[in-house]
């Protein structure tokens, strides 16, 4: 299920699942932890239902500003159990436009599952899925075997077209 572009994080937190869910899905809470300091989330919308909006605006003291941000789409939201969202779609599943650069330039899907361990503790797994097509050429560590061969072929085609036009 997971491939080389996926990041999987599994943790247990000493807090009840209701609180963990709130902190993850309530925009007012999310604003407080989502951005790496000194960056701040200055706007956040998260509507935890399928098709709901997930949008953040991140700003930093160095002038960094994502603007109002490209809105992503919630795919699944089961209270206390699962939240999945993607930046590849906008609200109501409309295909999204990716930004030209920066952290909103590549599509990603996040799937977070929560499990009540029953003793006031919660286990959760956060998976980040990254696209492995266009991103491959600039991003991948693929080790040059199968995947790299495909990219190499495309690059060679591109280089050949440059040559043809030269």
């Amino acid at each position, binding site marked *: 299920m997971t491939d080389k572009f996926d990041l999987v994080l599994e943790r247990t937190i000493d807090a009840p699942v209701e609180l963990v869910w709130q902190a993850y899905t309530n925009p007012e809470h999310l604003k407080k932890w989502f951005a790496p300091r000194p960056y701040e989330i200055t706007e956040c919308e998260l509507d935890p239902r399928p098709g709901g909006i997930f949008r953040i605006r991140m700003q930093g003291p160095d002038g960094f500003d994502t603007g109002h941000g490209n809105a992503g789409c919630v795919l699944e939201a089961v209270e206390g159990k699962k939240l999945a969202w993607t930046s590849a779609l906008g609200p109501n599943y409309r295909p999204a436009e990716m930004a030209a650069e920066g952290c909103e330039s590549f599509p990603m899907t996040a799937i977070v599952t929560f499990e009540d361990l029953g003793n006031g503790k919660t286990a959760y797994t956060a998976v980040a899925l990254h696209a492995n097509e266009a991103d491959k050429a600039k991003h991948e560590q693929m080790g040059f075997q199968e995947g790299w061969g495909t990219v190499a072929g495309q690059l*060679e085609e591109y280089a050949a077209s440059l*040559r043809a036009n030269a």
Partner: protein
Amino acid sequence: MLARLSRGPATVSELAEPLDMSLPGVMHHLKALEDSGLIRSEKKGRVRTCRLNPGVLASAEQWLVDRRSEWEVRHDRFEEYVMGLKAKGEDA
């Protein structure tokens, strides 16, 4: 060619050998790859040796490493925040 170079440096004639392409054609092709920063080459005597530019790979690996660290650190903050909420709740 890139697939071949991924296995290690090669001379122009080694790269040309399996290809149905004229030597000038191969040279032109290599120049395009070099201009795009994907490979570099050096000439010793009459032999030009090409290799993949290591920076291409390094930046690719770095991207995923950066994403991992972002993801881990984000959840560190999340946990810290939840523990803060919990502590407040207990005070109340």
